[in-house]
């Protein structure tokens, strides 16, 4: 490949990977949007909020971004669902207003919240990005949403000569394995820089480390721990694919197309915007990560022709789809006796339809519900070819998640749920219940069906602590998504890790419970 072109591609990839060019956005440039927090994914630092106009907006947080709650810095998980505040948004590389820089709830600074965040940060490390490396020395600008108090709060631990530990992190501030791959180091110099733009602490550390990691490069994000800080591995934040990290479902593991886009020869939902989408080769299963995920409400199906139509979530476009040629087709060579097995040819299964975590056909899918569609381009470039249709129930199950009810208010049509992962056997071989991965505000209506042990029950039977699986309608303008069905499930929590991994490989088939 042409060297110049390659460099260019790598540059693009670099930008895609870090989504930062080592400049902090000016708060004055951010667009303030009033809204109510309705969903948060703690692991990926993303979420959703409803604007006052009722529009659902999705957001992700750049590495330097930090929420403010009760006038103080707060981690995403510290902010209750339904909190109304101003979301300060900046556009992403496509010009869409999806990057959340911070929030403002117009409260006076609350010292208890401030202390809570300090405690959290000590467990998780103070983030920053690398401005420069030379030998085993690097210059790191630390992030903060509160530069005024930064010196006072943190700089005793980062004075010249202090020992520190430093970990590579991705731009979601997730590390690989803090206790194992963190590197010891020491502060050599502390520099003050103008806290230009939101996110900068105004402090730059010159550090030396015992060993350089691949990720210690200019532009990369790191997390730094003071010497006596309780470094903690947050389950599901670790990007290692072994140990308890191996118990995680795909969505919570390291995302290769995001972190190593160069390994992918096509555009993905996570990167490589400069490349074309993967083109289907007839008869060949498309590679992993090649799909374009679209959420939408099923409008109609033509089961005979394996096709149908759905309305895309939020944007409301009608899209036609056709499933890729599917199923195990047996082709027998006519010239040979029927009992001969040699000429039998199996065509791989290229498309699947999942409903309530079981294989289904298009005809099995209730219309009016929201599904996840894995789409591919047809010859004209339109995304009409589909390799997977999956309902929310199946998706949740596949992600090893259930919704644990934290607050139930059926009268007002509100149900607050935490994203609950099954208990795990930790490194001490004790069963441990992982903290929630996120939380959401679900809408229920009198039409919402509720199922418990195959029997219909009432919405009012749902109590905090219940574990739910759900199916929903799609979010449309002036018509927010609501639950069509709720299943009160067994405590998925006691699943042994082995069974979980089996399940994730699809060897275990849950029995579908169909609404009647």
């Amino acid at each position: 490949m042409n060297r110049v072109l390659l460099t260019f591609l790598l540059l693009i990839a670099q930008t895609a990977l870090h989504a930062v060019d080592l400049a902090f956005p000016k708060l004055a440039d951010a667009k303030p949007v009033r809204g109510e927090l309705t969903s948060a994914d703690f692991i990926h630092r993303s979420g959703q909020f409803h604007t006052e106009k009722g529009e659902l907006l999705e957001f992700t947080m750049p590495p330097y971004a930090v929420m403010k709650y009760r006038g103080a810095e707060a981690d995403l998980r510290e902010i209750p669902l339904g909190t109304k505040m101003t979301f300060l948004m900046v556009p992403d590389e496509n010009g869409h207003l999806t990057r959340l820089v911070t929030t403002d709830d117009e409260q006076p600074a609350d010292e208890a919240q401030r202390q809570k965040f300090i405690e959290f940060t000590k467990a998780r490390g103070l983030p920053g990005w690398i401005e420069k490396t030379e030998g085993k020395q690097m210059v790191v600008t630390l992030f903060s949403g509160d530069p005024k108090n930064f010196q006072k709060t943190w700089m005793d631990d980062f004075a010249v000569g202090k020992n520190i530990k430093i970990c590579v992190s991705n731009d979601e501030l997730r590390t690989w394995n803090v206790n194992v791959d963190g590197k010891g180091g020491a502060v050599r110099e502390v520099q003050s820089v103008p806290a230009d733009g939101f996110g900068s602490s105004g402090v730059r550390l010159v550090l030396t480390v015992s060993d350089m990691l691949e990720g210690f490069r200019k532009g990369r994000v790191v997390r730094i721990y003071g010497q006596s800080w309780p470094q903690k591995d947050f389950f599901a934040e670790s990007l290692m694919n072994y140990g308890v990290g191996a118990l995680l479902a795909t969505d919570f593991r390291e995302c290769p197309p995001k972190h190593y886009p160069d390994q992918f020869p096509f555009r993905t939902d996570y990167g490589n915007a400069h490349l074309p989408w993967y083109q289907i080769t007839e008869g060949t299963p498309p590679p992993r990560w090649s799909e374009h995920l679209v959420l939408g409400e099923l409008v109609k199906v033509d089961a005979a022709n394996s096709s149908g139509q759905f309305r895309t979530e939020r944007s409301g476009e009608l899209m036609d789809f056709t499933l890729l040629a599917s199923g195990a087709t047996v082709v027998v060579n006519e010239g040979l006796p029927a009992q001969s097995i040699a000429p039998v040819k199996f065509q791989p299964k290229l498309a699947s339809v999942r409903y309530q975590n079981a294989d289904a056909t298009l005809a099995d899918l209730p219309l009016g519900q929201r599904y996840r569609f894995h789409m591919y381009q047809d010859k004209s470039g339109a995304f009409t070819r589909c390799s997977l249709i999956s309902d929310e129930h199946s998706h949740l199950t596949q992600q090893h998640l259930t919704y644990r009810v934290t607050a139930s208010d059926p009268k007002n049509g509100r149900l607050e749920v935490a994203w609950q992962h099954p208990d795990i056997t930790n490194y001490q071989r004790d069963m441990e219940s992982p903290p929630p991965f996120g939380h959401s505000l679900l809408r229920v209506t009198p039409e919402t069906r509720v199922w418990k042990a195959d029997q219909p029950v009432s919405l009012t039977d749902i109590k905090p602590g219940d574990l739910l699986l759900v199916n929903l309608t799609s979010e449309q303008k002036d018509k927010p998504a609501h639950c069509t069905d709720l299943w009160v499930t067994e405590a998925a929590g006691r699943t042994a890790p082995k069974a979980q991994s089996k399940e994730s490989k699809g060897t275990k088939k849950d029995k579908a419970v169909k609404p009647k």
Partner: protein
Amino acid sequence: MTSRFCFHSFFAASSLLTACLGLVNAVHAAESYEAFLEKHCIRCHGPEKEKGDLRIDQLSRDFKLGADTHHWAEMMEQVNSGEMPPKKEKQPSQAEMAAFVTNLDSRIKEGRAARMAARPAVSHYRLSRKEYQNTVYDLLGVRYDPAKPGELNEDTLWHGFERIGSELSLSPSHVDRYYRAAELVLDRAFPTTAVEARKVRKTAAEMRYGNGKAQEALDRFGIKRPLRQLLFPGHLQTALSSGWFGKTGPEHSGLYKVRIQASGIRPIGGQAAHLSIGKRTGEETVDGLIEFDLTAPEDKPQVYEFEVFLEMPAALDFCVVATDVVDRRQGAAFRGALGGGAYLFTHSSETLLLNPNAPQMFDDKGNGLFSTVLLDWIEWEGPLVSEAEKSRRVGLVPQDDATPEVVAEHLQRFAERAWRRSVKKEELEQYLQSYRTEREAGEKMADAYRVALQGVMTSRHFIYLVEGDPVARERLTDSELASRLSYFLWSSMPDDGLSTAAKSGTLNGDGLKKEVDRMLADNKTSRFIDDFARQWLQLNRVGMFPPDKKLYPTYDAWLEESMRFEVIEYFRELFAKNLSLDGFIDSDWTMANARLCDFYGLQEPKASGFQRVSLKPEDRRGGLLTMGAVLGLTSDGTRHRPVHRGVWLSEVVLGKPPPPPPANVPAIEPPTPQSPKATLRQKIEAHRNDANCAACHAKIDPLGLAWDNYDAIGQWRTHEKVPAGVGSDPVIDPSGLMPDGRAFKDATEFKRLLLEDRDKVARAFIEHLCTYALRRALAFDDQDDLKAIQAEAKKSDYRIKDIVRAVTLSDLIRKR
């Protein structure tokens, strides 16, 4: 840290007798020890008193017989250590003591040498392991490694020599090993199934990245660079898996050709990448079957080719040897991440394909941070059997329908080659009987005949060099001479030409000269070069005490191996070019590879492997004595040992081993934090105030102290690094006086003085060569012959090959 360094004078005035590996000088002084005994000992240990039940006057003075050697040794020890005469008695002077000890020691050594050199009417000299290996190869074209665990026992060393007959005994367990060895060798010579050479090639993508699937992904992305396998220090990766060839058994053992395309990354200020391929011996180590430095740059990989003998099935690993390793102690995951599936290496500039939590291997400018190898592919081919090897087995086994007479003739022909002499049919009767028994039991010709072959190969006539007849004779027969010559120059059996010459009686006069010249021109002399240089210079001691990693961080296995190679390659060059013996002492060149050039601070050579590089005075090298191996082999792993260096030098270079130190000499105290920093020399000098030690040490220490500018691994220095104490590190003082009083101020001047003594150096070298060739210690009786050899060698100005030729053509070599 303990060091005993009390040695006693051996350069005592005039013609004091000193033993060289058991050899004594011609003229004995008046038995000075008798006068000492009379004056200081007999009064209490004689006819009047018999203290300790010891009557010295009645001890045997026949040292050759050695009946009372233990008493004499004890007496020497008592005087040497100052225990005797008792304190209340009149004390001998220092000079008296030194003379007594030296004189007695030389008599004891002389006696021991004479006993070792004594030959019965028929003497047996067992083949060393190396000789056995070479012999079966030359006899049958079979490769066999007797040094492999479970094979032949290690040879006993005597002053570094592996082939001294009186040292090489044979225990019952050893006999069993020879039987197994013969069986294995015959299995390989006559395999039951035909074995074809096979070839397998593995690319980096196949070996490291799941059969190339990752490469497909990159190809589609348009990255045309192929995936390369990153081999890094501190971690082993597969170089040959037994499954690669498909079904593989012992029958596939043999010579393999391996080709490797790779580049080497040298970090700034670090070492050139060195790759070692061999069987895993530890978590981070292999026994290096193949060792080489890679200097080909990243974008210009080179194909490296080697031939290696493999015992199959074999599993081999790559091991990058470097001082700075990607340390497991930094966390298993730290290093493990380099081996992870997501870590796709194509080029140092493409870091986005690499795990962020893996160790960084290249900095932002593309400079390597560790010595690494970037591997493209490896190819194995074998077992390869040359026509020459095959030809050695042609016609060995009789036809299936052969008559008993024909079978007997076949066996006789084989036995004559194997036993290196004419063989009478009746000598083979027992083996033929075994053959017949097998045949009668229904075995096929080939199987039955193998039993007879095995008999021949386990006979003492094969395993030993047998010289002499029941009726004693002084000179060798021609066939015995042929064997002696060929084991001297080729470390193996005579070839057909030499055997024929022996049989036809032409191994004398011009016929002998012709044969010797032919032998010296043969490639097989490289075995002499390897074996003799290793044994003479005692290279087995290199790395015996592994240098402390903290004190000598640049020392590693490959440097050690390279140091050993340097000596051998240097000797090879001197021999091949027939250069003067002065080259042992000083030169303006050496033989070095990239690693050594690095170590000596010389410019990195362009080509890989060993090559002649020139030296300038400021390089402070030249000759054997400033080579890393020689300087290091006397060290104890933490510091240099001047006394041991002196002993080595006097023994190996001057042929004069000093008397042993007395027992229980207190060690030099390790430095304490409160004391001022002092060089080892200063401490030794303080130690030497002990009168018992001073006389001898004054003679021996300067020989070692002259090299004080070189530390325990042979690095040049001007100050001695002292770990504890007050003040700065002291300056080295390498000056001193030769035993004869000539002064030198440093190693360079010392070398100059040594060159003035070239006759002594030549004499010592000739004695070592003769010990090696005759497989025995030299004795007083050999003096005249040695003188004659020296005179002959001097005619050609002591050129190395000419010296070897003079030894080969000497009268001594023809004597039993």
